[in-house]
């Protein structure tokens, strides 16, 4: 592959990943409303287009047409920076996720991953920790007490759950022996999904993923009944849209990460025995990965419309007194098992 060809291929891949994230986020809003409606014995949006499929477009149009309000007493630059950071951080995470195996076209190998850095998991952790700034800056720049309280809640919640999340990942990394998401996905062939080796780690990671994406039951930063809208109280128009959109992209990306880390990524048991051609297998892998992702997006919504919101002290108790000790225990347990099975020298 020439350098120019490489650049074009990567640019194309970035564009596709970006578009898919945005489209899925867009239709997640529709799916969320549909799921909520169905779980409450309602029909949900069904007026705009067949089955209401054009509803996200109508919502987007509405968002763009709304009046843009920047409060007088706010810090204008930071007020705009906040949602931009939130959107940016949720979009760049998709770069390290392996969306499938490799395509072999004309003697060249095209891996379906934007970049395979050898510290992929840490990259995701770093981006998540930057994501806090989007909320914090936005909440502070609004110059509104509810926004500030929401921002403080968001950041303390995200910092607290990042620790348990990191520890859950450490146990996983001990098992896999690599930080590269590509290698982690590639090693889970057949039924060797990591969930079998790391069930406790998976539950911790899942709970932390809920907390990191600010989804119910951890949606305290924007709890309407207490904080009006939380950190985005003062936001309107597309700046609000950015915050809401970023949440849905985060949900999509965390579903992808959960599927990649614990559920075999683009693998499916027994498919490798069929003896399919490489390219067809890679495309089928994308389909498998996305079906897993869609299941987890549904799971996020399912939980949202089932569980009530935590109280703030319950949230902190769960994070610090339950999840962190549990994840440390999980690390120790994993280490002991590896020592027993002679994988540590």
């Amino acid at each position: 592959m020439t350098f120019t060809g490489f650049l074009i291929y990567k640019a194309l891949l970035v564009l596709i990943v970006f578009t898919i994230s945005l489209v899925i986020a867009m239709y997640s809003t529709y799916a969320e409303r549909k799921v909520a409606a169905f779980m409450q014995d309602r029909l949900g949006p069904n007026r705009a287009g067949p089955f209401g499929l054009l509803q996200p477009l109508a919502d987007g149009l509405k968002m763009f047409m709304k009046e843009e309000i920047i409060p007088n007493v706010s810090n204008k630059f930071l007020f705009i920076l906040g949602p931009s950071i939130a959107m940016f951080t949720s979009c760049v995470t998709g770069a390290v996720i392996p969306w499938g195996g490799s395509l072999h076209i004309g003697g060249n190998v095209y891996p379906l991953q934007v970049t395979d850095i050898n510290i992929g998991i840490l990259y995701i952790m770093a981006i998540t920790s930057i994501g806090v700034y989007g909320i914090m800056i936005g909440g502070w720049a609004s110059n509104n007490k509810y926004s500030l309280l929401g921002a403080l809640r968001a950041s303390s919640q995200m910092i607290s759950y990042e620790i348990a999340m990191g520890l859950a990942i450490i146990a996983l990394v001990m098992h896999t022996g690599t930080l590269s998401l590509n290698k982690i996905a590639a090693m889970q062939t057949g039924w060797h999904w990591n969930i079998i080796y790391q069930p406790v780690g998976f539950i911790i990671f899942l709970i932390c993923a809920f907390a990191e994406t600010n989804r119910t039951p951890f949606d305290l930063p924007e709890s309407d009944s207490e904080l009006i809208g939380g950190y985005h109280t003062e936001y309107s128009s597309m700046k609000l849209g950015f915050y809401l959109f970023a949440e849905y992209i985060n949900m999509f990306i965390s579903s992808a990460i959960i599927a990649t880390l614990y559920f075999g990524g683009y693998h499916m048991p027994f498919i490798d025995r069929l003896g399919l051609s490489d390219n067809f297998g890679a495309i089928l892998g994308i389909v498998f990965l996305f079906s897993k992702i869609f299941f987890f997006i549904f799971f996020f919504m399912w939980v949202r419309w089932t569980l009530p919101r935590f109280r703030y002290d319950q949230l902190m108790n769960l994070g610090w007194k339950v999840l962190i000790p549990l994840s440390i225990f999980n690390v120790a347990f994993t280490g002991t098992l590896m020592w027993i099975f002679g994988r540590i020298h």
Partner: protein
Amino acid sequence: MQALTTRSKIAVNKKMTFMERIYIPAILGGMAITLRHFFKKKVTIQYPEQQREFAPIYRGHHVLKRDENGAERCTACGLCAVACPAEAITMVAAERKKGEEALYREEKYAEIYEINMLRCIFCGLCEEACPKEAIFLTDEMVLTDYARAGFVHGKDKLVEPMDKDKRIDVSKRQTKEVAEFKKHPEYAHNQVYTKSLKA
């Protein structure tokens, strides 16, 4: 005292067992419930296409009836206004002039007849009080408005159209009991609807 529901549980502050404290079984139970509802039949009625059936005795917007010749039945006696518990009805009476016999049934008629729909509680007492079978509550809804003034419905909105085809049918509100009651000689002068009901 009789229990209001069969599903009530008595709250006890007992110490939770370990299985209860990890909450996961309870969460899974809750999620099973929501999933079950996911596949249940939906109760939504899609309004403009589907409409919920009204009860036969639904009390909606009022109508001031005309008799079979198209003359207004109301004689502005004021009994409805007196009966009204919400004091929503006001009227001004006037004397019928020569040549207006086709318009008004009695010598006295209501020049202004207003019902404040914001005050009205749709109890139907006006209908009950009316000796002339002039006011009825129909199964039409009271439409909303942007201003308070729009809710004070005058004769333009209350009196039914002159055209016979456009008359508002209230015959189903005349139950047998009402018809029986109206047979009383006191109401002998006013038997239009009772007759039509018998036919």
